[in-house]
């Protein structure tokens, strides 16, 4: 190095002064203790959180949440900061669970991108705050900005009144007190309230129910009551109406009723994968399918309610072969669907989603309603008494009428657009934006910037639900509070307060001085302060509703069917604009404005495993034809031409996808795709059309290197993560030899395993007293009668044998270097029921928020540097499709432990594979040695731009650069439970007291956690179940995560037919009488349009050959 003495001294002096200057900093950086100035009203015990029961009205299902909030020092002030959202236990919608979106809601609440003050949108897409001049002078600048905004609106309203123009109030779905207040505001200020706009309005179903039953409502589907479920098009586990509620019910139905579930759909969703049998049908062939089923149900003479002949006469007369041809289902499959209804005591049909989002959507919904009527579902499993509250929601016809109205005459006066983004969604043919822009003043209300807000003249920022007062009524007779858990982070107001402020500015009488007083007066009217207190502490209120007695109006039904067009199914290549399991209708993409701030982008899409990027899912057959590849970094780009517009998108080859369907999801943000969404028009049922004709698809030769496909392969590649062959025949044999649930109370033809998990709620096997080994022997519990013996003979499978092997003193591996472990009190373990897992990803989101895991963004993802501690792996195999949640397995002989040179990871006395961050020096040896790939390395000091930093969980240390991290089994929750137990005078934590974040939020209650040393613990029961296995057990690492593998989920055509005796029967034990059993039509190897053949052993992609 060419440095002389003089330079050296110079550098040294400079460095020394820098050090000295840095040292002076010490005093400023000295840690401080900030007391309160005035103590808070409610007592806050330092270090312990506060809990608030509230609701999230911005999510489609409006779930009840319990907010965990910590008192934190921000600057020099104490603030209550929500750090985690969890479902409110017992809440009628979500009963403790929360979806991925609900868990990620804190990212919306704390988003730095939120609208921060009343402002005017600028042409460059930014928002310029109002100066605060020109309104009522108020002491605080914050209030002055609002006063200015109110003054502008008041002036414009008066001007509009003078000019005789109409003012409009358009909002997203609103329920509860806010809806009443909007009515009062509109009446007092001369504004016309419009029917609300939601992209997913379920209009066809509601309209059909209006025709058939005189109640245009969206009923509550009581999945938990049913024993046979047929879903047509509706992705009930992802976006359809109330997925968390449905998943909860599904889990109960599985364990209680032996639910058997068929799904017919056009694309691959996690709903389709969770169903027992999936039938791939042609786009828009749903009315033909349902017409066939209705005809068969009516004709075969076992229908519970008769359908008059004039209704049947209105149905198109087609043969089974013709329907088979139109739908692409073999006749045998069609009859299996019909038989399902016949054999079931309480069947349920749900048709929606892709089934109603096309030109014949209304017919589909009407036919579904008729089948529901004929098979006795109305009033049983289809419940109008507790219908979902969509009363104020309109449909696309309303929006079309509005667009025409706005475009005619002089244009509108003042238009309020609140919590909805019609410019993003509405079909371009409506020319809504042109009409809108003719208005005198467009006032946008919202939380985050979106396309509509950017087109407004004035934008009023709304407070988040966690900062507002209100209530929601998601269903008939269900009321839940919205109460603040935090002070407003920015100069925002709740919509109710905005409306009250506006009324004041207009000089009109106000119903209450603030939204808080408005909702309190409403609650007090119901039952005084006592009601209010109980309501706020319980978080929901269910009132009695008069039972809805429904009668079918057959004349109206026949008339509707006679008018129906029964369009031919779509032929040729079709593009499906599918709802996104992550972004829903697209609303969750509002956070994409800044990098690394949208948790939902970071979580892989359930079916494709893609995180960042925009893609088109193509069927394997087309991929073969075009020689496409979706290898990471070399993803082929195709050009999809839709109606004259060409789109260039990277591909994801999607196993199981129908040969003539391409899929793009909603919620992409590039302008080309937004234009594509708007290209689709309106269906006669009042819903958006989701299908577009594809003119051609060509391979461009271009390669994409930014699409983050997180799963290297969606095949197990013979590694046996799910070791039992998921084969129907083998499963039967397995069931037989294992002596599973063949007798006892759960006599559904041996269809389902008796629940071993207690989480499945009331009834079912889960509640049985469980006598451990003794119970097993007496045949009184979960291994009930049937073929006894397996449990007795296999020492591994009896509790004693299990305990010998897994609990207490381990002998160590034979011939191994390491001695065994002694677990004096606890051996924490987890069991995951793959039969219940629907792959929804809620666990992943919950883990991110609970453990303050950073969102690292696409650049890191493409390098494989994602940070998730739990992921859901999706496998498409010859023998069935499965989800596998994968997290640290907390192995007894963890391969990561012995390779750590600094003893940063070690085995703790409770069986946890612990990680001491402050010891870690980042060699990543452990990472390389982990067979499950669950360890994550911090390549950066991850940043949480304010106010996102307030979200961090104070019970977890935020890891710094160069440190390894991984699942801890939520050790902070174990500590909290022990602390609680000690306060309670107990030495041991009770079973169920520790709930990990993933377990707590699981909508299907597929996860159980607990102490394996407790023989009565739910996890021990699950771990000793006959269907338990461990992933990569043959490595001998003794993992502590037990998987209960599920029944094979059958892809139509992939397997032989189901024997008749295996079909479920009702809870009343109604077995089909001898005469009632028709000889089941023998399954014919599919020779129709959509033959699915599996190419080779271990191969994942079925090739789809059609008669194109």
């Amino acid at each position: 190095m060419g440095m002389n003495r003089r330079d050296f001294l110079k550098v040294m002096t400079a460095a020394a002064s820098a050090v000295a200057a840095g040292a002076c900093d010490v005093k400023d950086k000295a840690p401080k203790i900030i007391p309160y100035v005035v103590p808070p009203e409610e007592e806050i015990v330092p270090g312990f959180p506060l809990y608030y029961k509230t609701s999230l009205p911005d999510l489609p299902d409006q779930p009840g949440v319990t907010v965990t909030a910590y008192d934190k020092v921000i600057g020099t002030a104490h603030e209550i900061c929500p750090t985690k959202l969890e479902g409110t236990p017992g809440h009628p919608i979500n009963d403790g669970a929360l979806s991925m979106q609900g868990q990620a809601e804190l990212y919306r609440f704390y988003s730095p991108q939120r609208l921060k003050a009343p402002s005017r949108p600028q042409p460059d897409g930014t928002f310029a705050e109002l100066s605060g001049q020109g309104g009522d002078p108020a002491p605080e600048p914050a209030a002055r900005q609002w006063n200015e905004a109110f003054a502008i609106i008041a002036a414009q309203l008066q001007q509009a009144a003078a000019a005789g123009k109409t003012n409009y109030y358009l909002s997203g779905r609103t329920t509860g007190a806010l809806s009443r207040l909007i009515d009062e505001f509109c009446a007092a200020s001369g504004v016309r309230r419009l029917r609300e706009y939601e992209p997913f309005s379920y209009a066809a179903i509601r309209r059909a129910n209006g025709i058939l039953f005189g109640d245009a409502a969206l009923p509550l589907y009581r999945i938990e009551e049913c024993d046979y479920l047929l879903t047509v098009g509706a992705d009930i586990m992802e976006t359809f109406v109330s997925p968390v509620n449905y998943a909860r019910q599904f889990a109960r139905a599985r364990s209680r009723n032996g639910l058997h579930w068929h799904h017919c759909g056009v694309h691959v969703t996690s709903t389709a994968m969770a169903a027992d049998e999936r039938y791939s049908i042609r786009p828009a062939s749903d009315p033909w399918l349902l017409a066939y089923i209705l005809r068969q149900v009516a004709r075969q003479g076992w229908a519970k309610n008769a359908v008059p002949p004039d209704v049947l006469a209105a149905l198109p007369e087609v043969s089974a072969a013709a329907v088979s041809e139109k739908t692409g289902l073999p006749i045998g499959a069609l009859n299996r669907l019909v038989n399902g209804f016949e054999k079931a005591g309480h069947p349920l049909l749900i048709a929606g989603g892709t089934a109603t989002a096309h030109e014949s959507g209304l017919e589909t919904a009407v036919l579904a309603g008729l089948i529901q009527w004929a098979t006795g579902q109305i009033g049983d499993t289809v419940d109008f008494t507790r219908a979902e509250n969509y009363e104020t929601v309109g449909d696309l016809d309303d929006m079309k009428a509005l667009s025409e109205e706005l475009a005619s005459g002089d244009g509108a006066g003042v238009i309020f657009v609140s919590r909805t983004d019609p410019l993003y969604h509405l079909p371009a043919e409506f020319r809504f934006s042109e009409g809108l822009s003719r208005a005198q003043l467009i006032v946008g209300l919202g939380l985050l910037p979106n396309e509509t807000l950017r087109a407004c003249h004035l934008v009023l920022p709304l407070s988040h639900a966690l900062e507002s007062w209100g209530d929601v009524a998601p269903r008939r007779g269900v009321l839940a509070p919205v109460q603040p858990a935090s002070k407003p982070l920015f100069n925002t107001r709740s919509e109710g307060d905005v409306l009250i402020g506006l009324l004041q500015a207009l000089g009109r009488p106000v119903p209450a001085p603030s939204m808080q007083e408005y909702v309190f007066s409403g609650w007090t009217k119901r039952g005084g302060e006592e009601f209010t207190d109980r309501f706020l502490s319980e978080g929901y209120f269910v009132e009695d509703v008069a039972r809805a007695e429904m009668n079918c109006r057959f004349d109206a039904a026949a008339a509707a069917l006679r008018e129906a067009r029964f369009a031919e199914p779509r032929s040729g290549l079709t593009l499906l604009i599918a709802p996104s399991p992550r972004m829903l209708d697209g609303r969750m993409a509002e956070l994409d404005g800044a990098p690394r701030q949208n948790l939902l982008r970071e979580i892989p899409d359930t079916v494709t495993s893609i995180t960042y990027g925009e893609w088109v899912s193509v069927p394997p057959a087309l991929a073969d034809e075009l020689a496409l590849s979706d290898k990471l970094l070399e993803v082929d780009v195709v050009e999809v031409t839709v109606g004259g517009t060409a789109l260039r998108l990277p591909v994801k080859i999607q196993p199981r996808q129908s040969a003539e369907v391409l899929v793009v999801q909603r919620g992409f943000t590039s302008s080309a795709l937004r234009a594509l969404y708007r290209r689709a028009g309106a269906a006669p049922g009042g819903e958006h059309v989701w299908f577009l004709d594809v003119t051609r698809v060509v391979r461009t030769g271009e390669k994409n290197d930014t699409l983050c496909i997180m799963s290297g392969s969606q095949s197990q590649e013979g590694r046996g993560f799910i070791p039992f062959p998921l084969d129907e025949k083998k499963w039967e044999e397995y069931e037989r030899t294992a002596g599973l649930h063949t007798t006892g109370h759960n006599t559904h033809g041996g269809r389902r395993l008796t629940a071993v998990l207690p989480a499945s709620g009331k009834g079912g096997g889960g509640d049985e007293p469980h006598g451990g080994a003794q119970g097993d022997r007496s045949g009184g519990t979960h291994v009930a009668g049937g073929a006894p013996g397996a449990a007795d003979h296999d020492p591994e499978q009896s509790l004693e044998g299990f305990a010998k092997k897994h609990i207490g003193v381990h002998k160590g591996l034979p011939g191994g270097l390491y001695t065994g472990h002694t677990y004096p009190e606890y051996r924490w373990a987890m069991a995951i029921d793959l039969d219940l897992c629907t792959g929804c990803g809620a666990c992943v989101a919950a883990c991110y928020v609970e453990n303050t895991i950073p969102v690292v963004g696409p650049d890191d993802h493409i390098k494989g540097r994602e940070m998730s501690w739990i992921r859901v792996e999706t496998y498409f195999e010859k023998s069935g499709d499965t989800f596998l949640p994968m997290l640290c397995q907390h192995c007894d002989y963890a391969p990561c432990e012995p390779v750590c040179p600094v003893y940063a990871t070690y085995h703790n006395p409770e069986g946890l594979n612990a990680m001491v961050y402050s010891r870690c020096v980042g060699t990543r040896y452990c990472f390389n040695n982990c067979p499950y790939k669950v360890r994550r390395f911090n390549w950066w000091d991850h940043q949480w731009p304010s106010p996102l930093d307030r979200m961090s969980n104070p019970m977890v240390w935020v890891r710094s650069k160069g440190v390894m991290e991984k699942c801890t089994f939520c050790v902070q929750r174990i500590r909290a439970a022990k602390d609680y137990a000690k306060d309670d005078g107990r030495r041991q934590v009770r079973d169920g007291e520790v709930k990990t974040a993933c377990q707590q939020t699981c909508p299907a209650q597929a996860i159980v956690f607990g102490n394996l040393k407790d023989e009565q613990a739910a996890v021990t029961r699950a771990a000793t179940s006959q269907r338990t296995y461990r992933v990569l057990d043959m490595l001998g690492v003794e993992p502590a995560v037990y998987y209960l593998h599920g029944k094979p989920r059958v892809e139509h055509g992939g397997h032989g037919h189901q024997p008749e005796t295996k079909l479920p029967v009702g809870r009343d034990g109604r077995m089909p009488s001898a005469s009632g059993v028709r000889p089941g039509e023998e399954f014919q190897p599919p020779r129709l349009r959509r033959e699915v053949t599996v190419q080779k052993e271990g191969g994942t992609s079925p090739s789809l050959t059609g008669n194109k």
Partner: protein
Amino acid sequence: MTAMSKKLVALLLNGYFAVFAVFTAAYGFYWYQTQYVPEQPIAFSHRTHIQRAGMQCTDCHAFGDRGLQPGMPPVAFCMTCHVNVLPNSPEIQKLKKYYEEGRPVEWIRVARLGFKWTSGGTKSDQIYFPHKRHVQAGVTCQTCHGMRESMDELYQAAPMRMGWCVSCHTQEKVSTDCWTCHK
């Protein structure tokens, strides 16, 4: 001089200074750990409050037996007495000013768990230390915080580093598993 001896001298000189540097750093570290008496915004004396006013620790630090932290008294709480007690003392005037302006007193933390060069010299965010468990187990405040009742100005009385924690945990036969304390 030969090249060899030149190197030797350089080595000796460098070594001499290096030893100095190490000693200085070590002393600085030791001083910061034990002798550091930060200047507090108000010259609050624990001795006066405990010995002269006869107060108990829990009168002000109300959550010692049920909180993770013992809690600091709110400014308003100080004022409940000091409206009447020595209202004209210059230090109480400072307190009054804080109260009237609605600002919290920014006390400098004295008890620093662990030591970290960055983020202000404490590892408390990495450690789960429930005061309640220790107080309920009969550990006195003085065991860790020293004779606060005789201190006019506060200093850290115990090293509060891992070895010190573990020595007590070993002696008392309570868990020494890393994850008992490390978050």
